[in-house]
């Protein structure tokens, strides 16, 4: 029996437990029986005898769970095999970093959707996991449902990855592709994206390239390019004009926010992209191109965010740990 502890019970945490329950028979065929032994959010928790539907209902109705034990107390005191860590991203690692460290030291596997701990302490966490003979899995941190990390770590393991370029932020891609299609100014499309819930009330984390830079750091470290957040040259999309799209189109280009990593350069910036290129995407899609020495260029694209998209990536990590 695999015992799972869940920390972080917002959209992503709830999506994970809901999808895991919905796909229980399929997942159990692959990994064996499992049970969720505790769930914690930033203020409350539930452990012992409880059902997932009960926990979700409690959280929706009361905004909190049944007990007052903290996530850290549960990680230290409960017996479990895998920590599913879905706390909110803080670039300094935040509480998520402390939870992951604690679980790894205890000899538990970790599956996380939280970029912060990996941006702040990638090497340290991977070393800690290796020292304790456990896995730290983070497919959901980059590209949402798109299997970017597994592609790099597993399927391209024999290749020398010389460069990675990607569209890693769906909000920016939505804004830029709408500006291109409708000839509208940035501010107007941003306000439309806010109304649709695609952009946050404070969109700076997305539109200034901070989110894409954090993902680039994770991706670069995954393929052996040592990268820190402060090494990333970063420019946002707010100065792009409708005229820029028009003039770029005359030469067969569009403009997209591209995150690019090589041994020479780590950069997130608007770039001219050929309309025939796989990174010339529309809407909230994400895509990554790996340029390899041995196998040429390999591209993967898909939905970069969303409750069940992220959950599906986390469940694929769980399956990978137990079923390879």
């Amino acid at each position, binding site marked *: 029996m695999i015992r799972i502890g869940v920390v972080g019970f917002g959209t992503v945490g709830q999506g994970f437990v809901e999808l895991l329950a919905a796909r229980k028979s399929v997942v159990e065929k692959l990994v064996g029986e499992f049970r969720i032994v505790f769930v914690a959010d930033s203020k409350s928790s539930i452990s012992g005898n409880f059902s997932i539907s009960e926990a979700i209902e409690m959280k929706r109705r009361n905004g909190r769970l049944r007990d007052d034990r903290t996530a850290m107390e549960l990680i230290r005191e409960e017996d479990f095999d895998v920590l599913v860590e879905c706390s909110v991203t803080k670039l300094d690692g935040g509480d998520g970093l402390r939870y992951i460290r604690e679980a790894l030291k205890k000899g538990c596997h970790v599956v996380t959707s939280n970029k912060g701990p990996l941006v702040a302490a990638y090497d340290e966490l991977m070393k800690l996991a290796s020292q304790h003979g456990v896995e730290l899995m983070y497919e959901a941190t980059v590209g949402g449902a798109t299997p970017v990390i597994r592609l790099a770590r597993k399927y391209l393991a024999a290749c020398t990855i010389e460069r990675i370029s990607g569209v890693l932020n769906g909000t920016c891609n939505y804004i830029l592709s709408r500006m291109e299609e409708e000839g509208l100014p940035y501010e107007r499309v941003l306000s439309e994206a806010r109304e649709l819930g695609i952009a946050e009330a404070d969109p700076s984390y997305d539109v200034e390239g901070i989110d894409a830079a954090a993902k680039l750091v994770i991706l670069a470290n995954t393929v052996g390019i040592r990268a820190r957040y402060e090494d990333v040259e970063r420019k946002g999309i707010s*100065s792009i004009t409708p*005229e*820029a799209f028009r*003039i*770029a189109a005359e030469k067969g280009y569009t403009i997209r926010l*591209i995150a690019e990593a090589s041994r020479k350069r780590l950069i997130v*910036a608007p*770039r001219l992209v050929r309309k025939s290129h796989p990174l010339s995407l529309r809407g909230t899609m994400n895509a990554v191109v790996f340029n390899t020495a041995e196998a040429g260029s390999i591209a993967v694209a898909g939905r970069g965010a969303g409750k069940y998209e992220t959950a599906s990536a986390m469940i694929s990590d769980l399956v990978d740990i137990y079923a390879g």
Partner: protein
Amino acid sequence: MEELEGRGVIVRSVDEVRILAAASVLLIGHIIHTDLSDTIRRIDSDGAECVEIRVSMPEVGKPSTAMLTIAARSEEELAEAIDKLKEVCSEKGIEVIEPLDEEFV
């Protein structure tokens, strides 16, 4: 060749390939009011030059957009010219949008 030189003709170069690399770069900002000809003059050199420019000025006082095509004798000289352009544009508060380095192959 020897005959030409024997007649006093100075042969400067033979079979020289003048252009081997080219890239288009987009500029956004107050491109005209910050002296576009100065911007171009500063990137032109023996090995690279601006060979095409397309400018759009939508409204007075609003940022303009220009697509510059730079051609060079080698990839290295092209990269140097683009670096120089970025330096000049940084001084002038103009945003430079570079192309992705290569096509998807």
